[in-house]
Each structure stands twice: as structure tokens, then as C-alpha cells.
């Protein structure tokens, strides 16, 4: 069964619970194992191409690298730690290195879980599921769907505004005040247009009989079955398995802000 078929709300809930479990621990091995398993599930059961995945994942590799760097340079040095390298005020200890690595791995494992969700869930289905399973008010859900639909329209409008500016010979912004003025020149008309359109959309929805009543019918029904709960159990199981392996290898450590 491909991952696209599972209930979106349960998928999102699974990610949040997995992240919460992972944040309890603070060692490099647990998140690393979770990362490997999640990525494997994304490719095998999610049928996501590696190219698409790595494109979204790579900025976070960079981010994790900065995290590690920050944690190394600005970390606290505790008495009695094994010093690996020292230069001026910077001291690199073995424990500090492990902490930095844990922090980086933590970011990457969270990212892989999230990517699994994003790459296998359609936005509309997620909203329908939130309405049907999590009692999200229809007013809000359909409002968000309408707003989401505005995105391509706004991109078009942005192009029009840019062309209009170019035709009238607006020079390119160079200094900071010029950049601020340019920012205003784009955002204000874009937002004003969007708000006017939003008001018209609301009117159209109401004139077609949309009341925002919670006891409405759905054309596209999204259900929850035992398979969705099995999905939840398997993921939680995988995270717990990672912690177990990490414990076997003697790395497992609870996170209690002691660092």
C-alpha cells in the first residue's frame, strides 16, 4: 500500500508524535537510525524519486552543518571533559563534539519525517481530512483552500506589476531605503488586490449557499481504518527500535537540558 493512501491527519499526527519521542533523547545514533529508516520508507513505499527528495533535503544538510558549527564554537566547556583540540578561547572536547553531532542529526531526522509527510500528501486531502476527522471548522478550511488557490494568481499579478514598473522606467533598487520602497511598491498592490479578491470570493461562496455549518456533507469522504493505526504503530515502533539499538550500543542518553 503506497503511503499516499493513508489518512493525512493520522500521518501528520504520527510525525508530531515521532518528533516528540525523538526530542526526549539526545544522542547521535537514535536520530540517525530514524533518519535512515524514514528515508528508506519514503523511497520504497512513498515512491518518491531520490532527486526530488534530495532537492528539499539538501538545505537542511547545510542547516545541520551550521548547527554543528554553532554548537562546537559556542558550546559550554565542562570541567573534566576530554580535550581534542584547543585554540585561543575555542576548545573542542570529545563530549562537545558528540553533542554537536546529536544536534545536527536531530534536525535531519525531523526533516526526513516531515518530508515523508509532505511528499506523500495532497494539500486538499489534508484539509478535507482535518475537517472530517479533526473537526476543523469548514469556514476556515474552505477559506484556506480559497486562499491557497490565490497563489498562482498572485504570481501572475506579480509579473504584471513588475512589467508595469519596467515600462515606466522604475530604476533598480540599490540602497537600503530604495529596497524598502521597492518592497512596498510590490507588496501593497499585491495585498490590496488579494484582499479585494477575497471579499468577492466570500460573496460568491455565500451566494451559492455556503453557510459554514459544521454538519455538512462531503463529496469526497476521507476515512480512518485499522490500516491507518497500523501505520501509526509501525512508525512509533521504528523510532523506539532506533532508541533500543542506540541503547544496545551504549549511546542512548536522555535530553534534560544539562548541556
Amino acid at each position, binding site marked *: 500500500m503506497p503511503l499516499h493512501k493513508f489518512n493525512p491527519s493520522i500521518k501528520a499526527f504520527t510525525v508530531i508524535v515521532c518528533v516528540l519521542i525523538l526530542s526526549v533523547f539526545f544522542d547521535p545514533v537514535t536520530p540517525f537510525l530514524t533518519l535512515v529508516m524514514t528515508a528508506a520508507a519514503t523511497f520504497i513505499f512513498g515512491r518518491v524519486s531520490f532527486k526530488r527528495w534530495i532537492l528539499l533535503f539538501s538545505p537542511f544538510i547545510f542547516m545541520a552543518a551550521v548547527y554543528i558549527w554553532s554548537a562546537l564554537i559556542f558550546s*559550554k566547556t565542562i570541567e573534566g571533559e576530554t580535550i581534542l583540540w584547543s585554540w585561543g578561547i575555542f576548545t573542542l572536547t570529545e563530549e562537545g563534539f558528540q553533542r554537536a553531532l546529536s544536534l545536527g542529526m536531530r534536525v535531519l531526522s525531523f526533516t526526513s519525517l516531515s518530508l515523508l509527510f509532505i511528499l506523500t500528501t495532497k494539500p486538499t486531502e489534508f484539509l478535507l481530512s482535518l475537517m472530517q476527522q479533526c473537526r476543523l471548522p469548514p469556514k476556515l478550511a474552505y477559506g*484556506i483552500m480559497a486562499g491557497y488557490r*490565490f497563489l498562482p494568481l498572485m504570481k501572475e499579478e506579480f509579473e504584471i506589476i513588475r512589467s508595469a514598473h519596467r515600462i515606466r522606467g522604475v530604476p533598480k533598487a540599490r540602497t537600503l531605503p530604495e529596497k524598502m520602497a521597492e518592497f512596498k511598491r510590490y507588496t501593497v498592490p499585491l*495585498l490590496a488586490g488579494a484582499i479585494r479578491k477575497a471579499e468577492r470570493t466570500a460573496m460568491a461562496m455565500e451566494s451559492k449557499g455556503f453557510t459554514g455549518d459544521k454538519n455538512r456533507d462531503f463529496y469526497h469522504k476521507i476515512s480512518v481504518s485499522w490500516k491507518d493505526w497500523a501505520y501509526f504503530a509501525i512508525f512509533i515502533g521504528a523510532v523506539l527500535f532506533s532508541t533500543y539499538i542506540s541503547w544496545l550500543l551504549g549511546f542512548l542518553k536522555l*535530553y534534560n537540558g544539562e548541556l
Partner: protein
Amino acid sequence: MLEKWKLREVIVLSVLAVVFAVVYLVFLQFGNVLYGMFGLIGYDLIFGIWFIVSIIAAYIIRKPGAAFLSETIAAAIEVMIGNAVGPRLILSGMIQGIGAEAVFAATKWKNYRTWVLIAAGMGSSVTSFIWGYFISGYAALSPAYVTAMFFVRLISGALLAGLLGKWLSESLAKTGALNSFPIGKELKRGKTKNGITA
């Protein structure tokens, strides 16, 4: 909470959230650059921008929940567009929204003077920092560095969310697009200076 809202207001709220979700994603890239240059604190320099929709939505719509809902929806849209932080980001959005909402709630959603907007931006800074402290493991950093990060974020929240949000909302009101909202009516009456709606 939403029963008292008009559909018009809900859709305007969603549209604001969608626009700023895109802005937020753009600034995430910018933040990454600052991050690379200054370390974690680089992020805090522009952290305020991520609270701006709370201020704008609350200032325009002026109903309980505007700050909280707009920030939460913006985060949800970011997730839908495709942000690798994922569903956890919705939680961050809620927490940021609560900070601003708490400040507006303290004035019973009646006062929208400049200082209240600035305080709301700072409110988001506080809640987001507490959340970040636990989820991103700031505890691993030296206390002096964390304190510096906190103050930088506080100032960023005041300026980039509070003041910039106020300025953008007012520029928007001047176009006439907000004439059916309290902020537009206020502008017509020429009372923008004291910012009282009641």
C-alpha cells in the same frame, strides 16, 4: 470562536496567511545565509518577520483569534507548499501566534495603539524562544550566547513584526482595499493617530 466571524473576514485572514507564508519561506533562505555568517544568532536578527502576519491580521480584523489563527494558517500553508520543517512547523506557528494573541487579549482586543502592536511582536518572540529552547536544544549553547539571542529576537519582534506590520497595514488601508474593515473606517474618520476602535 469562529462563529462570530464573517466569511469575508475568514477569507481575508486566509489570504493574508497565504501571502505571508510565501514571504516566510523566502526569508527562511535569507535566514540561512545570515545563519551561515553569524551562527544561530543570525537567525534571530530577522526572526521578527515570522510574526508579522499576526500583527497585520489582528490590526486589520480586530477580532479575538486573528493573531493566533493567521500565524497558524501561515505555518500550515508553508507546510503545504513544501517546507521540510513539516507538520512540526504548525506547532511553532501556533506557539508564535499565542504570544501575540496573549498581548491583544490583555487589552481585551480593544487597543491597537503602536505600543500594543510592538508588545505583541515581542510576545511572539518570548513564546517562540521558549519553544525553540526546548525543541532546538539551545541548552547546549553557552548561557551568555543564549541571552544575547533572546534580546536580539525581542528587538527583532518589536521592529520587524510590530512596527513593520503596522506600517504595512496602514499603507494597505490607504489604498482603500480595507474600507469595510475597522482599520479602513478608522482611517476615514482620521483617527489613526490614537488607534482606538471602540
